[in-house]
């Protein structure tokens, strides 16, 4: 919302400066977004008088002038044809910035003659495009500030334009008068009284208005009158200047009148060219499928139920949003029908949104105009049309009724103080409300008709608080909820998430935060991309579906980094994935991705390609940190984005999957443009059972003094036998004695033959009561061999 200071002063009697006004507006909740104050550009310039003007000795077109200034007589070289003795000019001195030529002046020599400043043209001061000569003022004294002269003689030239942001609850501030009222309540002046006029009708309007029965909830009241014999044409200069100053294009007197009321009083109006209206006007709901060319010359098609205005031939106006081109006023209009109506604001918002029209009328009608002003607006606008265009008004025709919006709420001064935490005396509270147009009756505050936003006691508090100024609010300590050391606040899952994040980072991964939405193709690779997770209005096709998994986002991040020449990557993310489109269909995932080599090639030969066992080790470390049990099953058969033979599901039983590690499927890498090798892990923290016990106590530590013994065994098995099965079989041979079983070697093929491999294990025996004798060791070894053979069909390697 833009307005000029002089426009504001139509409604507000004030001596406040622009700075005071803008500061107050922002503090009142009418946030100032910009101020264009021409005076600030012109502040340096003063008036001067040319005493003499002589021909420049070396230039035909230049004159050397002696100029009387506030700093004495100065010599100035000037090229303007009108530079001559006796005229009053605007002087820019050395050091002054001249906006129109973007130059800061200095003392110069022009063709050998010193010049101490310049006499400015209107264009040089950005006052107009006039550049035929320097400014000649009809009055003014030497040394007077040019801005002061303008303020007194040509105030439009220095009229500041203020732009404010209006929050949706304040339609009243979409008119200059509403803004003035707020400032007056703050004490920055007095609100000027408004005039009310009644223009008697001289005949009955030949156009009648009806509101269809089913449209009464969409249009509360529709008032209008015909004014015949008007002479349309450009509106007067003062009105054009005003509209231009706030960025509107003057069109014609009739249209400019409606725009004036829109911005002056938040009162959109419409004018029909009465000669183009066939028959009467009828407010009704569209059947659906009708079309209308709007004043913006675009065609709009209506859906059933949208409120429109028709004449006998069809739809002529999108009610309260935009008029139709066919019945719009032109320079030739001689009979005009003026409309002032109160529309249901919800209906306006819905229709406006559906038709995608952003007009000043829609903006105001959907936020709420003052219904109490409707009939007065008809009279005031009639008067203005008569003043500007002449003509003869009809009687006013009205359909529907002005809605009764009167209501009152209790003002509880103590509650205001308790909520705001400021001492605002009751008197001041009542004064504020009165200044804003409320009527106080005991402790009941009656709401003015222009404030649709005030719908309860809390709104009264807000009004009092903002006028009292929240800038003055002083902080007041809030006592702790409980005394003493604050209790921990994170839930077990929140702690788990944090531990997982820091553990993965400690393992050398860089945390990413990628978008929650990805493209459909990538989502489909990870069993997502269905309609359930589709966005209705994505910002681009790259962000069309909620991610089913974090890995596609990480893989795309990897591809971007590879494109930048960064090939060895360890990326991770902790965040939500979406297995459906309902609020509860979201789960926390921890995903890590390794691409390329373990590090740059190095002098120690330590760099190698990443492999599945890197991902496995990291997955296990993170699961361990999150409190997962050490004893897990490794199963196959995870989803299709994993390499079918090179992945494992980390499970507690076949249905409880804590995570998956593995190589990514080459097709997935190709589709997402990632150059492999690439291995990854996915973990689901919520799947890890919460510990049963509470309390921090650890079980007692048992240390055995007796010497432990290690024995190695090598077995030959079929190549598809899982090492873990072999290890578990060995460990089961004597659960009391065997402390640990480790695989330390794997050898495939070679002399063992096709489809065979050798696995070597170390078994650590820890006696607890007596030292192991050779016979004991032999016995347990035999049991180990037997168990392993039975479980895996292994042969002891000779």
């Amino acid at each position, binding site marked *: 919302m833009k307005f000029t200071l002089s426009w504001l002063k139509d409604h507000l009697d004030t001596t406040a400066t622009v700075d005071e006004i803008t500061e107050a507006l922002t503090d*009142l909740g009418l946030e100032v977004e910009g101020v264009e104050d021409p005076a600030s550009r012109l502040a340096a310039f003063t008036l001067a008088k040319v005493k003499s003007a002589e021909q420049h000795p070396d230039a035909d077109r230049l004159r050397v002038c002696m100029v009387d200034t506030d700093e004495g007589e100065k010599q100035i070289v000037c090229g303007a044809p009108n530079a001559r003795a006796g005229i009053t000019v605007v002087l820019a001195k050395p050091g002054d910035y001249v906006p129109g030529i973007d130059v800061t002046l200095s003392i110069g020599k022009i063709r050998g003659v010193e010049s101490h400043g310049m006499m400015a043209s209107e264009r040089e001061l950005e006052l107009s495009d006039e550049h035929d000569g320097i400014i000649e003022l009809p009055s003014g004294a030497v040394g007077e500030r040019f801005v002061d002269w303008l303020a007194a003689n040509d105030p439009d030239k220095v009229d500041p334009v203020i732009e404010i942001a209006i929050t949706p609850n304040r339609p009243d501030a979409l008119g200059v008068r509403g803004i003035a009222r707020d400032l007056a309540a703050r004490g920055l002046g007095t609100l000027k009284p408004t005039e009310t006029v009644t223009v008697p009708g001289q005949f009955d309007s030949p156009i009648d208005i009806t509101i269809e029965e089913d449209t009464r909830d969409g249009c509360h009241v529709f008032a209008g009158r015909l004014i015949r014999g008007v002479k349309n044409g450009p509106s007067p200069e003062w009105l054009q200047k005003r509209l231009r100053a706030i960025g509107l294009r003057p069109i014609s007197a009739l249209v400019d009148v409606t725009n004036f009321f829109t911005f002056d009083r938040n009162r959109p109006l419409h004018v029909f060219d009465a000669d183009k209206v066939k028959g009467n006007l009828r407010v009704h709901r569209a059947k659906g499928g009708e079309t209308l060319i709007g004043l913006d010359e675009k065609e709009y098609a209506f859906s059933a139920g949208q409120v429109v205005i028709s004449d006998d031939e069809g739809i002529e106006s999108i009610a309260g949003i935009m008029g139709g081109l066919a019945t719009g006023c032109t320079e030739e209009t001689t009979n005009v029908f003026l409309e002032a109506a109160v529309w249901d604001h919800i209906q306006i918002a819905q229709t406006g949104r559906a038709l995608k029209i952003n007009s000043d009328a829609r903006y105001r009608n959907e936020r709420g105009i003052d219904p109490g002003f409707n009939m007065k607006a008809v009279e005031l606008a009639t008067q203005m049309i008569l003043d500007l265009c002449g003509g003869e008004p009809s009687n006013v025709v009205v359909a529907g009724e002005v809605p009764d919006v009167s209501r009152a709420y209790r003002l509880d001064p103590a509650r205001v103080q308790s909520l705001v935490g400021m001492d605002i005396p009751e008197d001041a509270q009542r004064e504020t409300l009165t200044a804003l147009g409320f009527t106080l009756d005991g402790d009941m505050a009656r709401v003015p008709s222009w404030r649709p936003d005030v719908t309860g006691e809390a709104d009264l508090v807000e009004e009092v608080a903002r006028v009292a100024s929240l*800038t003055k609010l002083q*902080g007041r300590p809030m006592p702790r909820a409980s005394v003493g050391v604050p209790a921990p*606040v994170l839930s077990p899952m929140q702690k788990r998430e944090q531990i997982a994040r820091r553990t993965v980072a400690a393992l050398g991964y*860089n*945390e*990413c*935060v990628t978008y929650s939405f990805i493209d459909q193709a990538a989502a489909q690779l990870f069993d997502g991309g269905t309609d359930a997770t589709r966005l209705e209005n994505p910002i681009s096709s790259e962000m069309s579906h909620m991610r089913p998994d974090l890995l596609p986002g990480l893989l795309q991040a990897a591809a971007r980094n590879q494109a930048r020449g960064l090939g060895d990557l360890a*990326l991770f993310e902790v965040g939500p994935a979406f297995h459906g489109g309902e609020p509860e269909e979201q789960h926390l995932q921890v995903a890590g991705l390794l691409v390329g080599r373990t590090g740059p090639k190095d002098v120690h030969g330590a760099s190698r390609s990443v492999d599945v066992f890197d991902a496995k080790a990291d997955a296990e470390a993170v699961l361990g940190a999150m409190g997962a049990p050490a004893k897990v099953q490794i199963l196959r058969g995870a989803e299709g984005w994993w390499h079918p033979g090179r992945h494992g599901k980390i499970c507690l039983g076949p249905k409880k999957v804590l995570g998956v590690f593995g190589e990514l499927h080459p097709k997935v890498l190709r589709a997402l443009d990632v150059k492999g090798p690439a291995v990854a892990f996915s973990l689901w923290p919520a799947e890890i059972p919460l510990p049963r016990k509470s309390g921090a106590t650890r079980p007692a530590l048992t240390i055995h003094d007796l010497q432990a013994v290690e024995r190695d065994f090598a077995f030959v098995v079929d190549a598809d036998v899982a090492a873990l099965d072999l290890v578990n079989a060995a460990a089961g041979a004597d659960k009391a004695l065997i402390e640990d079983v480790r695989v330390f070697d794997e050898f495939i093929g070679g002399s063992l033959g096709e489809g065979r491999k050798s696995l070597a294990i170390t078994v650590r025996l820890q006696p607890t009561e007596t030292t192991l004798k050779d016979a004991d060791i032999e016995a347990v070894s035999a049991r180990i061999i037997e168990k392993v053979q039975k479980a895996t069909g292994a042969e002891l390697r000779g």
Partner: protein
Amino acid sequence: MDDLRDKYIQAIADASDEDAIEALRVQAVGKKGEISLKMRELGKMTPEERQVVGPALNALKDEINSALAAKKVALADAALEERLRTEWLDVTLPGRSRREGSIHPVSQVWEECTAIFADMGFAVAEGPQVETDWYNFDALNIPGHHPARAEMDTFYMARAEGDNRPPHVLRTHTSPVQIRSMEMAGAPLRIICPGRVYRADYDQTHTPMFHQVEGLAIDKDISMANLKWVLEEFFSAYFGTEVKTRFRASHFPFTEPSAEVDIQCSFEGGTVKVGEGDDWLEVLGSGMVHPKVLAAGNIDPAAWQGFAFGMGIDRIAMLKYGIPDLRPFFDSDLRWLRHYGFASLDVPTIRGGLSR
């Protein structure tokens, strides 16, 4: 006997390796060595002679043994010296490389916020990111026709055929978590709700996803003055310097009165310095919870009141750590992650400071 001594001490001193030492040992004090043989002769001597010669021979034997031992150590030392002289490495070569991970600024600042608010008794509440229309709007006093809905650039979820519920949305703010928490925990209540939020907006300073942290405190007598204090405490702790705030009246459907909050800063030299200077920077929206919102969360507005506020985590991260642009936050450029990221063990705490 002195001759004998001199002979061996000299020989030991001249010995050049362990073998020579061993030969001398055998020759002098071995079983059949010269001194041993002499000791055997003691038996043939008179007791008087023996009393003189015996101790002398023993002393000689001891002296030669120590000389042998000392020489042995000296030779070993010399040999080690010699070996070490050849054992030279170019230690300017790089160490074995180790990957260094990092924590994203959003996570770090999230933890910083948590640490500060936890100290003031705020728990951490979370909620779904795909939200129902009711939780995201209606319950927050934003009815269907409210212009704020259109202004929020909401992302909508596609609706299945025949599903006549209002479409779900990607939450446009963390405020729905307020309602869910009130429903679940009732009053009194102190929570912060951090998390991802979504708006259909993408330009220099906006990304379609960003992060917010919401705060909510409900009790019998909480006022806007308490809110100002809590925020000033927060910002001072977060930025590590005293930060003043300025409240400006504004409007949000879910609070009344509402205020935009600016923090004190200076823009001198083209960079923002928080907690200095005379300028103000808008960082959050806040206010007293609207009675309708309390009622939507099943809390009696006649008995309870409280404040709520919401601010951008990414934004305060940018302010504190001097990160110029928002968009790279979500681009995962490794160079950015390394430059702006945090070490895994850099856990923000109140006792140790929130940042290094």
